[in-house]
Structure formats: C-alpha cells, structure tokens
C-alpha cells in the first residue's frame, strides 16, 4: 500500500492528522484485507485543508504599566502599551486586538515609552537600551545600546520640534550620563558624564535649543545643568543644597518650578529655578492638611501648574501660583487611581480620576465593573472630538487582576484578560458528567444526524461537490462537541484552573479557551487585614469519582498574607464548576510546603499536609475523619526540604501532636531523620526536582521517592561563560527522599548550569551546558532495582510467583544498578516536562520548552542509557536506537507547530482518559493547549472517522456473503444434477 500526501515540514498538523488516520487504517487494513477494492478508497489523500482544531492558542500581554495613545487624526486608533511582562504592544483602540507585539527578554524591563513623529515608538529598557519601532507594523527601526557603568533611574526626552528627515537628537539620561542619540540611526552623537552620582529627574529643552537637566546629586543637593544640544558642552551649572535633604521624588509643576519632599517626608519643598537662582520654599504638610501628622508622597503623574500630594487616605491637588504660593484645588478622599493630565485645545487640562464610590468631577461617568476584577490600579486618559465638537474622553483602565479595559461614554468598550499572561500554577478539573443523553438530544433530529453522516461519507468517497464540502467544514468548525460543558468519552475536554500572579483563579475550557468563571482572591480577605495577598499554588482538593458523585470537584488555592515566606497562609477552597468559594480562611501558621497525601476521606477530599516555617505539620481538612484516616499512616509519612541557601537537604518524619500549641489535634511535630550537608566552598545547590506526586506508573519502581539534586561549583554559579571549564563542574545526586540514601552521585567536569531536569518513573533527564564542548548536553540516568531482576519470566508473572506486590520497606536498601548516558543537544532549554497518560503504559515523550518559546516533543527512546553504537538484534527488537552523539531534533515534532508561546515559563501535562493521549498545557505570556500521543493514537479512531461508511461496508459485505452463498449453492446443485 502506498501512502502519499506528504505535508510540509514545518506545518506539522496536517501530517499528524494524516498519521492518525493511517494508524486507524492500518488496523482496519488487517480486517479488511481481502476486500481490497473498498479499502482502496481510504488511501485517497485528504481533500480538505486541515488546521489545528483541537489546539488552543491565546495571546496576552500582561499588566500594562505604560500606555501612549496614538494621536493621529485619521487612520486606525491605537494605543501603544508596555507591560510588566516586558511586552511592547500596539492595540486597536476600537476592539482591543493586537496589531503587533514584541516580547523583550526576561530581564529587559521597559522604563519608558513614547511616540515620536507620529509613526515611531521609542522605548527605553533595562536602563540602557534604546529602541525605535515603526508604529504601523512594529518593525524595529534601530536599536542602540548605551554604555553605562551603573544602573540607575533612566529616562529619555524627545524634543517636540523633531521633524521627519532631519537628524534630530533624542536625549537619554542613563547611569549618570546624558547621551544624545541620533533619531535616524540610533548612533550616540555625544555623551556627557556628570561628576558625582547625579540622578537626573527631568530633561527639557529651552526655547533657545539648549538642554536643561535637573537632578539630585546627593541626598541634599540639587544640580541644574544647561548643555549645548550640539555637542553636550556644559553651558551653565548651578547647584544648591537643602539642609533637610530630599526624598528624591519630584513633580514638575512647570519648566522652572518643581516640588519635592524633604528626607523626613514631613515638609513640602517648592524649588523655584526662575531667574538663574535656586530658591527653596518650605511648607509643613501639617499646615496644608489640618491635624495630619503622617508622611506624604508626591504622585509621579504629570500635571501642568499643579501637583498631586498623597496623604494617608487623601489626595490633594494643589496649584502653584506665581512660583511660590500653594493653593489647594481639591481634596479627594479615597481615590483609586489618577491619570496624567491632558492638554485640551483651549488651554484647559483634564485628568482622569477613578474612585470606587462617588466622584464629583465635572465630567462624571460611572461604569459598572465586574466585581471579580478588583480595584482600579492605573488609568490612562485620552481625548477625542465628539460629533458635536465637544471633548470626549476615553480611559484605559488597568484593574487589580491585571485586566485591561477601555472605557468610553460610560461603557466598557472592550476588555482583555491580561492576567492570564502571568500564570503561576495550574491544575485541571473534569467536566460534569452528561446526564440522560440521547442521540436526538445531541443532534437536533435523527434526520439531521443521518444527513450529517451521509455528507461525511460523500466527502470521504470524493463524491461531494463544493457546497457539500463547505457544509462539512462548517459542521466541523461549529463542532458543538468541542465546547460542550460536559465530560467526553476520551477525556479530552477539561477545565484548566489557573492561578495568576494577581491572585485570580480562572477556569478555562480546553475546547475553545473561554473563561468559564473567574475569582479574585483579595476581596475575600479584605476583612482579615491582609495587605498583600501573594498567591502561591493551586491543588486539586476534591475529585469525586467513586463516591460522592453528586458533589462538584473543588480546588485548593494556597496564598500567603504578606511578602515574606513566614507570613501567615491563606487557604481557599473553590468549586471547580462554578467558582463559588466553599471556604476561605487565614491560617494561624505560615506555608512553607504543601504535600497532597495519597489519602482521601469519604467525600473524596484529598488530605493535605502544610508544613510551616517552624517545621510543624498541619493536616487539612480539619475534620475528625481526616485525623482518623491519617493517624495510621503517620509513621509511614516522610517529607524533606531542600535548603538551597544553607546547602543542605534534610529529611523528616512525623512525631505525635504538637506539644507547645494547646490542644491542636491537626498539628504534628516533625523530627529530622537524615541530612545531607554540601560543603559550602565546593558545591552550591542549583536545582532540585522530583516526580509529580500524582504520576501514574506502570513499571514498579523500588525507589518511590527519588529526588534529583544538582549542585555546581560556587564559581560556576553564574551565567554560562562566567567560569572556565577547569573550575566548573556539576554534581548530580539521586537521593531516596525517605531514607536520605544517595543512590547515585556523578560529577560532570567542565559543565555549568542552568540545569533543567525532569524525573519520572525510574529515570531522570537533565540538561546543562558543557563548557569543554561548547554545547548543551542532556544526560539520562536510569535506576534499576536488582532485587526485582528475577521477575523477568512471564511464567512467573502469570503464576503469581513474583514479589512485585509484596510490601517493601524503603529502609532495606537493595542494590541498585545505575546506567547513564550523555548526549549533545542543540537547544537551550527554558523548561522541561514529560507526558503523562492515564495508566502510564504508553511510552513517554519529553516536552522541551526551547529558547524559541516552542515546545519540542522528544521520544524518551532517544534518551535511553542502553543505547550502544551497535545494538544486538534482541536489543533492536526492544526499540533501542543505535547510539548517536547528539539528540535529533525532528522538525515535525514541535507540538506547538509554527506557533510561539511567548515568554514560555511552564509546561503542565495531564492524562486524558484515553491511554494513548496526554494533554499538554504550555503557559507563559501566551497560552497553548494541545494533546499529544507519544505512541500515536493506537487506541482510538480519529474524531471524524466515518462510522456510517464502516456500517455500509459491513452491510455490503454481509449481503455479498449471502449472495455468493446463494450463488454457490445454486451452482453446486446444478453440478450435482449434471
């Protein structure tokens, strides 16, 4: 049989579908062997163009921190934003869609953005990298690296008079230097270094073309420099010191007047630079606000002739008259956010202010916000001319959950759920079981069902005309099946429950990526005096499948009430189907580690142990039943902690109830059982990982709790290249986490981190850099238990004469054999994961998040330590590939196809119900969800398999059997008569 129809190399999906079909056909081929004419139909190449139907890909940008509206009169309205995920993006103001987007590197945070000449976006990032982008298409025009010695506050200034074509300059203050950069090619024209650590606060151009830089050079001194724009010569230098010192935050009221605070933040200092002198005017804050004794802060927003002073619960807008007199314009209690001011044509200025209850501004618009978005964090205001020639305003609002809204005319025009760009943890939940389904209910009527199938048959038999084809395609697109809120047979449809950095829990449907529900955690704990709610992790709390089927599954969200690790924890239990909070409470202890136990109570709530920073264990849920379940298991429960800073790994067991706390049955003391102390002068822990707690294993592994730890020489702890091959080494440990036994310890000389590792079954794969070979390397270590070696005979297994089910104590320490092998690998790696399937029988694939933000699937077979240059026939039969120097990268095995999951941070895998298939969720700034079948889908037909055609074939076959039988009977009778 000949299979034609090769797809292009990079477009992987068509080939995958094709392969899947082939697999199904291969199986059928054996059954329909003799009926070759009908089978030949299957070999015809597919007629429709396929595209990824089962993949989910969503693009986000993250929490917006700078926004510039494009003030073009005609053309598409757009806003350029820079975000905390280091993304620069241009958004459509009408719909909120992305025009273009650039994800800068992880450490390349954007300091300032601006639009020049109406068509260039200028960004300053990392304090020293100036880039210019073309606004319409986002192409980079030039990029300029400024040489700075020290990182400090940096800002740039684009003269307003800049014109197209002329070689104007952009002035950048970075690292105590002032640079003039050509606007045409980004070349540095001149550079002026300032003595003593001058921190420039403001740059502006005088009407005569000179550049004025104002800054603080020490805690109590103000410096003003006037420089020539042509060559950077200092024309005028003035300085004045203020005895009280400065708080180093300044707001410029006008070109020559600015306000700042003294070092104690009790006195407002007005600095007047008019007339070539520096004059200070001091005003006590208590004089401005009667009876106020706290400190104040100056808001960084830009106003003209005014500034905003923030007191405890109050923002005061103050006007500066004649360079020295202060006048309070407005006292605004409890505002949430305030925007920069905008100049309007007739000399007025406007700014937006968002409050949550009431506002008495001139233009008052109130909008109804979803309570799950939290409070407003930032506002950016933009104006437009209405049809009646009056001013209209639109505001870009950044919410507490990092979502972005555009508000105009009192309505939310569009919103973007950009909190999803910063997922920190994810879990999955099954969808509800469909009750009482019938064919008639799923499809509208039986007639339509038949019609649909007939169409499919027609399509397969190449009898369909263009109209039919369009109908088939439409059916497939609508694919009602995919987005249903019920469980499917194969377990492909799930709810992804994710936790974002903003402290929001969202449930995404894997079919189309829609948000089923969302929940912001911080309002739940506003009464608990919880200032900073830091989300930590999310776990499956209740997964009903045997008992308690009528209860909804739920997830456990762990967060911390404060910035430090010893802050008290907060746990919330949330219904996976509705997002309803079952319970939420602030704990009396901190959360250092959370251990889901392999135990569930009668309602299928999983027992969890939370370890606090005093090494005490707390059992959840706090019910007498859970205590009764946990007590018998107490002596057999162990835990470990990796103390990377101290260079130690310690193992613990549980003792009785806590002694010092009174009468807490759910608190347990722990006792140190073992410890591994790394010598601080020669080894530094860089990575530790272990198996996923819920991994299903088919093979029986003696070392149940294998912990992988990697240490590097302290000198080689930095980036690649920071150490010579002679002084760099990497030591890898495999540790039994129950007894602390070092199972394997191997040193890679001349190797350096970063180390990425994945532990599964009895093996570990890790990735590092080989300084000697100047290549990345991946090594595999497999641990095999000798005591189970004699179980190889299948007869022993069949007759039950094996010791596989007998309980084994981790303290017996059997001999283990360890095999390892290293291979070169081309890519640098961001993250690694391994596929997981329902029963763990299917062979595994490593999922490698490459530096190009793609996910590469690599068969574990390539990382087999038994690979030899010339495997024996029996080894080949086992699927052992001849040894090669490096691991192959097969372009078709990118599971992300041609897409990029920008800012890839993590890959989560979960089993589908179908053994062959594993679900993959890759997240970073973007989200990507797909399913992979490491050994192809051997246990299922494709989704679009035509059952009708199969039925018809069978009917035809049966009919032909009867016909031929009748014919042969007849013929035989004739022969007998002869």
């Amino acid at each position: 049989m000949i299979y034609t129809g090769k797809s292009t190399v990079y477009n992987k999906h068509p080939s995958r579908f094709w392969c899947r079909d082939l697999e199904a056909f291969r199986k059928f081929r054996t059954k329909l062997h003799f009926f070759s004419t009908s089978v030949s139909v299957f070999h015809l190449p597919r007629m429709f163009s396929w595209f990824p139907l089962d993949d989910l890909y969503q693009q986000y940008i993250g929490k917006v921190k700078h926004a510039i509206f494009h003030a073009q009169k005609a053309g598409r309205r757009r806003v350029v934003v820079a975000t905390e995920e280091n993304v620069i993006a241009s958004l459509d103001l009408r719909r909120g869609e992305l025009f273009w987007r650039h994800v800068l590197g992880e450490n390349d945070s954007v300091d300032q953005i601006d639009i020049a000449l109406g068509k260039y976006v200028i960004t300053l990032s990392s304090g020293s990298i100036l880039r210019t982008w073309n606004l319409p298409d986002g192409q980079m025009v030039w990029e300029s690296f400024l040489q700075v010695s020290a990182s400090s506050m940096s800002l740039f200034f684009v003269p307003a008079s800049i014109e197209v074509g002329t070689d104007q300059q952009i002035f950048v203050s970075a690292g105590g230097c002032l640079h003039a950069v050509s606007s045409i090619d980004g070349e540095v024209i001149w550079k002026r270094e300032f003595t003593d650590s001058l921190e420039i606060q403001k740059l502006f151009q005088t009407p005569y073309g000179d550049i004025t830089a104002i800054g603080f050079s020490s805690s109590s001194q103000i410096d003003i420099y006037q420089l020539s724009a042509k060559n950077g010569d200092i024309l005028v230098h003035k300085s004045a010191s203020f005895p009280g010192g400065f708080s180093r935050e300044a707001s410029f009221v006008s070109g020559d007047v600015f306000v700042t605070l003294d070092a104690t933040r009790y006195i407002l200092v007005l600095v007047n630079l008019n007339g070539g002198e520096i004059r200070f005017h001091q005003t006590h804050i208590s004089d401005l606000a009667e009876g106020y004794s706290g400190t104040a802060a100056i808001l960084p927003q830009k106003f003209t002739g005014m500034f905003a002073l923030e007191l405890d619960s109050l923002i005061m807008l103050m006007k500066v008259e004649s360079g020295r007199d202060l006048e309070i314009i407005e006292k605004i209690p409890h505002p949430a956010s305030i925007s920069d001011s905008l100049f309007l044509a007739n000399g007025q200025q406007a700014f937006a202010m968002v409050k949550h209850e009431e506002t008495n501004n001139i233009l008052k618009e109130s909008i109804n916000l979803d309570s799950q978005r939290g409070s407003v964090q930032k506002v950016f205001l933009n104006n437009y001319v209405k049809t009646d020639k009056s001013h209209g305003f639109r505001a870009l609002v950044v919410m507490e959950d990092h979502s972005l809204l555009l508000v105009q005319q009192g309505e939310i025009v569009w919103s973007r759920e950009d909190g999803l760009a910063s997922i920190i943890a994810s879990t999955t939940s099954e969808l509800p079981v469909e009750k009482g389904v019938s064919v008639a209910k799923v499809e509208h009527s039986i007639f339509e069902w038949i019609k649909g199938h007939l169409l499919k048959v027609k399509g397969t038999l190449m009898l369909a005309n263009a109209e039919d084809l369009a109908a088939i395609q439409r059916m497939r697109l609508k694919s009602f099946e995919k987005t249903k809120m019920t469980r499917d047979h194969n377990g492909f449809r799930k709810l992804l429950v994710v936790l974002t950095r903003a402290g929001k829990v969202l449930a995404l449907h894997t079919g189309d990526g829609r948000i089923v529900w969302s929940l912001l955690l911080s309002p739940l704990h506003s009464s608990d005096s919880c200032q900073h709610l830091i989300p930590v992790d999310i776990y499956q709390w209740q997964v009903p499948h045997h008992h308690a089927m009528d209860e909804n599954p739920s997830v456990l969200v762990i967060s911390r009430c404060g910035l430090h690790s010893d802050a008290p924890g907060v746990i919330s239990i949330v219904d996976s189907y509705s997002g309803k909070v079952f319970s939420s409470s602030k704990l009396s202890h901190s959360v250092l580690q959370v251990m889901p136990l392999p135990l569930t109570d009668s309602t299928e709530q999983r027992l969890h142990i939370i370890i606090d920073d005093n090494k005490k264990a707390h059992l959840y849920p706090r019910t007498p039943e859970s205590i009764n379940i946990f007590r018998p298991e107490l002596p057999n429960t162990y835990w470990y902690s990796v103390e990377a800073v101290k260079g130690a790994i310690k193992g613990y067991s549980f003792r009785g109830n806590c002694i010092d706390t009174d009468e807490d049955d759910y608190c347990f003391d722990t006792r140190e059982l073992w410890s591994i102390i790394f010598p601080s002068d020669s080894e530094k822990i860089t990575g530790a990982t272990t198996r996923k707690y819920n991994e299903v294993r088919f093979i029986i592994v003696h070392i149940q709790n294998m912990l992988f730890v990697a240490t590097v020489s302290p000198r080689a702890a930095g980036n690649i290249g920071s150490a010579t091959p002679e002084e760099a080494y990497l030591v890898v440990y495999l540790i039994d986490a129950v007894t602390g036994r070092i199972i394997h310890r191997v040193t890679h000389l001349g190797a350096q981190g970063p180390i990425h590792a994945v532990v599964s079954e009895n093996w570990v794969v890790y990735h590092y850099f080989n300084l000697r070979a100047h290549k990345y390397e991946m090594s595999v270590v497999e641990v095999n238990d000798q005591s189970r070696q004699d179980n190889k005979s299948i007869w022993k297994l069949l007759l039950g004469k094996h010791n596989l089910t007998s309980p084994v104590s981790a303290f017996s320490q059997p001999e283990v054999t360890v095999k390892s092998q290293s291979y070169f690998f081309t890519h640098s790696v961001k993250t690694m994961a391994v596929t997981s399937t329902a029963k763990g029988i299917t062979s595994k694939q490593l999922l490698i998040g490459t530096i190009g933000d793609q996910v590469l699937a690599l068969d574990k077979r390539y990382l087999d330590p038994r690979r030899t240059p010339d495997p024996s026939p029996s080894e080949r039969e086992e699927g052992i590939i001849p040894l090669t120097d490096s691991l192959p990268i097969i372009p078709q095995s990118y599971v992300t196809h041609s897409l990029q999951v920008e800012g890839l941070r993590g890959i989560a895998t979960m089993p589908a119900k179908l053994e062959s298939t594993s679900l993959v969720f890759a997240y970073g700034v973007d989200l990507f969800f797909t399913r992979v079948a490491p050994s192809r889908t051997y246990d299922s037909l494709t989704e679009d398999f035509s059952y009708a055609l199969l039925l018809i074939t069978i009917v035809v076959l049966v009919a032909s059997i009867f016909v031929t039988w009748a014919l042969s009977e007849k013929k035989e009778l004739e022969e007998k008569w002869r």
Partner: protein
Amino acid sequence: MRRSRGSPAVGRRLALLVVLSLHLMLSSAFQSDELIQDDEEFGLEGGRIPDREISTPVRAAPRVKTSGDVSSPTDAKSVQITLEHAFGDSDFSPAGIFTARLKSSNHGGQTLTKLRFRRDALTDLEKKAFERILRNDDFYTIRLPSNVLNPPGREYVISSVRARCLPRESLDEHFVINMEGVNILSVTYGSTRMCQYPRLLEYPTKWVFNSRTVLKSGELAQRRPTFAEEVLAAESAEGEGVKPPEKSFWAKYWMYLIPLGLIVMNAITQAMNLPEEPAAGQTASQTQQQGAQRAPSAATRRR
C-alpha cells in the same frame, strides 16, 4: 565488660596484654569491626579485621580527635571521626570512632583511606533504650560531623533507620559514607539485609553490632567517544533509525507459506478423495473451503 578500664591498678602494657589474651580466648568479647570490602578505590583496606588488631588503637586513642598526629613517614595523617547515636527522641551520645588516614593527593585534594571503625559496646542503659525503640518501632539515629578536619564542620550529617530493621542474631549495621574531600556529604545507615514490611518485633540474641562500612566518593561522568555523524544521518526523518534485523526465511515469508501449505493440503485431500469417494470429497473440500477463510482460492470447484 570488654575493656579492662575498670582495673586502674594494672599498668598499661599489662592491661593490653590481658586484653589481647582475653580476646584471643573469648572472641565474643566485643564486636568492633572493619569494613569488609577490600576495595582500594573506596579507600578501604583489608577485610574484616580480627578483634585484637582493633583493640590496640582503642586503648591508645583518646576520644578526642587528634588531627595533628603524624603517624606515618609520608604526609598522611590520621584522623578520627566520632560516631554518635540517638534512640528515638533521645539526645546524641558517642557510640564509636572511625579512624582513617588522610592522604594528600598531588593536586591539593585530600582523601581518606584506610578507614577503620571501632564500635563501643552498648551500655545497659543504651540496651534498654534500644529495647524501647524496638517496641515502639521508632528510629535509631546516628550522626557524623560534616567535616573530618574540624568537626562538626558546618553541621552534623544525620541518618536514621527503623530500629526493627537492625536485629538479626546480632545488630547488623551498614554505613555508606559519602565523602567529598575532607567533607562528609552524607551517611547512609541501615541494615545489611532486606527490611521486611510489616516490621516484626524481634530482639537480637547478641547485643553487639556487626558493622560494615563503605566509603564512597563521587564518580566522574563518562562520555562515550564521539561517533561519526553518519549514524545520525542514516536515520530517517521519522527517527526510526532501527534497521530491521535480519529475519529468518520463515519469519519473512510465513504469510505466503501458510496459504500455500493450505492450498497444497487441500489439493492433496482432493486428489486423494477424488478417485475413491467423489461425493465425500466434495463435502470435505466444501467445509474446508469455508473454514480456511477463503484463503485457498485455488480450491474452486473443479470437481
């Protein structure tokens, strides 16, 4: 019991002689051993050492470590590492001494060799404590300093085992000491044999330790020599680089041979049946035809 410490009146040499002779006579006096693996690579030397040889350093060496004690003409110095133990939640108390030679290698590193171990006998109090942890199925914990030269180093390295795993006739113990130069990374402590679960309560017949010690240092990663890239190139794009192994004739052509055999058999039966019993032959061939899944298409009616 074992030592003549309790006889202060007797001189040292005399005591030594007494001890030696006692040991020669009552070999069960005190059980202190040496590593049994004579693996020079692990820095071990000799097998199980007779008791008398051990007892000498016991007497000579004070409990405190003497690191400056140059005891050989080369630049190797002897070090002593104190083993401490704890029963369940009790505090740590001294339990024995490891003695070893510190050898300086050419490139500055230092390694331990010739490790010997002397275990103190259990006192009555300790015996009781041990019985208690056996009853409670509690942990027996040992610890060593993490640095050999200036103990305890940064911290102690600890290891524990369920007490019920230890008793056989005597108390079997097995130390694996993971070294990194002069630092002890970790010690793995356990029984020499399998530890069954559920653990049964049994008391040892002899309250002595039967010790084995292995000193382990890290190994270097080996890399196979570079191979020609042709091997990789030879692989197909799908990565199925496994060349089909040479198959036997039968393995290759069974699917053709079986139908052929059936046809031949069919033909033979027909040929045999035809001359004798034409009617019977017909029915036979008919049933066979259906049974053989229409594979022998040659068995058409030629009768």
